[in-house]
């Protein structure tokens, strides 16, 4: 335990990547080695800062820690206000970890415009960290939108053949949701202002969540927030941008997309939609649970028939993220804890799976499952690591993927045994698509396609092992000793459910 009193640690975390991006912008782009070194260094420093924040964190203390508040636009009472609780802590560490891993994993595949790529990546990290740490609705929205632009460029410039279609689709989907959310944010703030007569605190999450909004406003604003977050998660039927974006994105883009950006939606539900509009959340929970179950089943079934490795993992994300929304909206302690753990473990495991797909793509320039086969005999180390993460994703007990899904199932069972039954059934499909894919890719005789590659088909190299090693360790540690993450979220989960159970309504006529 270290003391961080008086240190603006959260601002340091958020803006460290920005400093790195500015340094990169001023550097000559020709010196690719130096560019890569600065980018990786920045990401590692940010990671180290987030670890410092973890060490100074008081587990079990209620509320937000390391709070910083600076007046920003006094006209509307908008503040630069950041703070961290156990939930944001886990997601911040996930972000900073996956960011440096992604940057390291980009060293070999990204050959053109390296400097611009690294700047975009660091800018992306700023936005994601800001979303997880903002406590002011306006600030949150700004970070939320900032995330959009670098990802648009990363997919659009460094992506695959159909990248432009994919990236425009990604932007339009996300933008429709987020712009309506802006209207909802402003309406919420104004409802507060007209009731209290002052803009002071009108965008402050901590003030607003104590304020009971009238039911119509709750319903309309919740729907707007829901749309923004459901598109980001993505929930069925708002998911169609995801497979396209994943297939076209470069490997590291996919890692961040699946590992962190999908969590922005889940985090948004937990941090903003539930506490601000508890009544509406209760009223609409039934629909959202049904949509989540559809996502779980649909994602798993569609994944079975995917011919492309990346598409398969993308649809598996739809299924796995269904557990997150399911866990959130059953409103039980286990469910919410499970949802948060599932977000973290999905980030770790799916990030790793995309890295594994990237490894094979680097060597074959192909991701078609039908072309693969017999990798076990040609690249044994790679096959073992790939298998490990595949089993983690299936949800093998003792590995990280099990913890979240199990907790969500328990939490769901307490509230609706039927829903729990459907979700449990869907987990079987999860086993089917991953195991069948693994069998076709790794076992059997080496395929014609792979044999043609000859000595180009090398086993996993040291840098690639380095990118996967931390995820490997975490997948085991969280699986064996889940308390390492559960301890952090005990207090905030209790707080959030406490607010939900006693919804105050009708304060505004």
């Amino acid at each position: 335990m270290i003391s961080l009193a008086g240190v603006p640690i959260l601002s340091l975390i958020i803006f460290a990547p920005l400093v790195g991006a500015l340094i990169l912008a001023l550097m000559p782009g020709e010196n690719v080695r130096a560019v890569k070194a600065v980018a990786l260094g920045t990401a590692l420093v940010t990671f180290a800062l987030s670890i410092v924040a973890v060490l100074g964190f008081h587990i079990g203390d209620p509320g937000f820690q390391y709070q910083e508040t600076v007046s920003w636009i006094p006209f509307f009472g908008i503040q630069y206000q950041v703070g961290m609780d156990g939930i944001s802590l886990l997601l911040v560490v996930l972000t900073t970890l996956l960011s440096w891993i992604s940057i390291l994993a980009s060293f070999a595949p990204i050959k053109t415009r390296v400097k611009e790529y690294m700047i975009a990546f660091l800018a992306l990290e700023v936005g994601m960290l800001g979303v997880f740490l903002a406590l002011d609705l306006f600030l949150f929205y700004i970070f939320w939108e900032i995330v959009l632009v670098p990802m648009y460029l990363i997919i659009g410039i460094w992506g695959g053949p159909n990248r432009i279609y994919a990236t425009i689709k990604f932007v339009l989907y996300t933008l429709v949701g987020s712009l309506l959310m802006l209207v909802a944010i402003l309406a919420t703030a104004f409802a507060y202002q007209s009731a209290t007569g002052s803009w002071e605190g009108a965008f402050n999450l901590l003030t607003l969540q104590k304020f009971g909004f009238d039911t119509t406003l709750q319903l309309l604003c919740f729907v707007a927030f829901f749309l923004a977050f459901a598109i980001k998660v993505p929930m069925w039927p708002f998911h169609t941008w995801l497979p396209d974006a994943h297939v076209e994105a470069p490997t590291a883009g996919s890692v961040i997309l699946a590992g962190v950006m999908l969590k922005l939606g889940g985090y948004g539900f937990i941090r903003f939609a539930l506490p601000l509009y508890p009544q509406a959340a209760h009223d609409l929970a039934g629909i959202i649970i049904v949509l989540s179950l559809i996502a779980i089943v649909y994602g798993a079934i569609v994944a079975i028939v995917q011919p492309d490795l990346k598409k398969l993992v993308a649809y598996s994300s739809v299924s796995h993220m269904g557990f997150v929304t399911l866990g959130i909206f059953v409103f039980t302690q286990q469910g919410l804890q499970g949802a948060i753990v599932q977000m973290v473990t999905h980030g770790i495991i799916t990030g790793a799976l995309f890295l594994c797909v990237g490894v094979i793509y680097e060597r074959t320039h192909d991701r078609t499952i039908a072309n693969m086969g017999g990798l076990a005999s040609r690249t044994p180390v790679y096959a073992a690591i790939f298998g490990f993460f595949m089993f983690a994703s299936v949800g093998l007990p003792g590995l990280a993927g099990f913890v979240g899904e199990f907790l969500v199932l328990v939490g769901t069972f307490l509230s609706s045994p039927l829903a729990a039954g459907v979700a449990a059934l869907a987990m079987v499909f999860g086993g089917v698509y991953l195991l069948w894919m693994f069998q076709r890719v790794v076992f059997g005789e080496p395929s014609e396609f792979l044999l043609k590659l000859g000595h180009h088909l090398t086993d996993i190299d040291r840098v690639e092992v380095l990118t996967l090693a931390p995820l490997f360790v975490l997948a085991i540690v969280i699986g064996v000793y889940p308390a390492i993450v559960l301890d952090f979220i005990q207090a905030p989960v209790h707080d959030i459910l406490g607010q939900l159970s006693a919804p105050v309504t009708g304060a505004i006529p």
Partner: protein
Amino acid sequence: MTQNEWLAVAPFLIVSGLALLIIVVDLIWPKRPVIVTGAAVVGLVAAMIVTVAAGPIAGLNSQLPLTGQPVFGGVYIQDQLTVFLDLLFMAIALLTILFAPDYLEPRGLPMAEFTATLLFAISGAMLLAGAQDLLILFIGLELLVLPGYMLAGFAKRDGLSTEGAIKYFLLGSFSSAILLFGLAFVFGYTGTTSINGIAKALISFSNGAVIPVGLAMGLALLVAGTAFKIAAVPFHYWTPDAYQGSPTPVTGYLSVGPKVAAFALLLRLFVEALGPIRADWGLIMGVLAAITMTVGNLAALGQDNIKRMLAYSSIAHTGYIMVGLTVFAEASDPEIQAAGIQGVLFYAVAYTFMNLGAFACVAALQRRPGVTSQISTFAGLGRRAPLLGITMTLFLLSLVGIPPTAGFFGKAVIVISAVQGGGWLTVLAVILMLNAAAAAFYYLRVVVAMYMREAPDNARPVVIGALTRVGLVIAAGATIAIGLLPMITSAMLDWTMDAARSLLLGA
């Protein structure tokens, strides 16, 4: 003339004097663009300083904190709103003059005539901004639009330019006539041309009483006439042709100068004079706003020519600004009414910098005669001309409304005022946001071309002149500063609110 009268019209006199001076300079030293541009820049900066300084001297801030004193028997006023708009118009002129030489000189188009014509137009806008009498308002308007027709046809050997100018001239003249007809009806009913007098005469209708048929006729004519001027649907048909045909720096000016000035006209005419009968024009303004932004964006989606695309997009932005006016008309709380006007003014500032900047990027690219404004021209620009690529991306993101840019705050301020208005104004805000999302599609197509497509093999290097560089940096700096720097954002919010209040207090 008293001291106050001199001070009130000083900015107007300086700018129109500057226009005359440039004609004389060009007679003495013909074809010296450097002298012309230098004189115009120095003169405009001087006029801006005088505008800022004249207010406190005239007692603007000490005795009457927000409203100025009407001068010349109450026909002109230098209040906070006039000061605000004057500065904005001069900024538009300044940026246009910085962007123009790169485009005009290679085509052999005379700089001096261009500058003088532009300055006359701007002086018209400034006259209009402070008008307190219908006749001054109309004279200001004509002084604004007549040079505009000349500028549209400035490339007189270019068929498209001439065609666009003729369309612009004919429809512009019709709309001026319609507007004048409407003014006559209003005069007929109120017996005065004074804006304050009209407001006083109409005050008996402010409780929602039915207005007489003749006044309603006048109102309809005024709505149609001004809708032409701001290019609101369905009176927008002249816009794409006029914008596409005009020389690109002129297009930039036309998309910003006359549009902001027409909104100044709306503020003086509809808010200040016809404010008491706002219940009668609020709904039509709201419906026009919704149609205008939707049609503008839908039409822009299919354009392959960037000038034409930006022309339709400027129609959409007209719709966004009209939402602010609708909020004024429909809200009952004076604070919310002021917030609506604040939205209009804030958006006007954001729109000025981002739209002028975007057109300047197109103009810079077209420096070499013969380069078209097709979207394919932008292929690979991000690598061929990094400065153009980055600034154009910034302007386009601001036009979409992505934070932290001026365009984002512009939309936020308008939407927040609409949400405050409540009821169907909230629906209008939602329509605005859905439009903004749809608009992202065509703006981002340009970014796609610049960064995600390779330049054709025969692409020649893009050379940007020093003046254009300065102008781009100013426009981009303003676009980002208004969005990113808290002090500037707050100052702009306060300033636009003061200007809005000064208008409403005067009304």
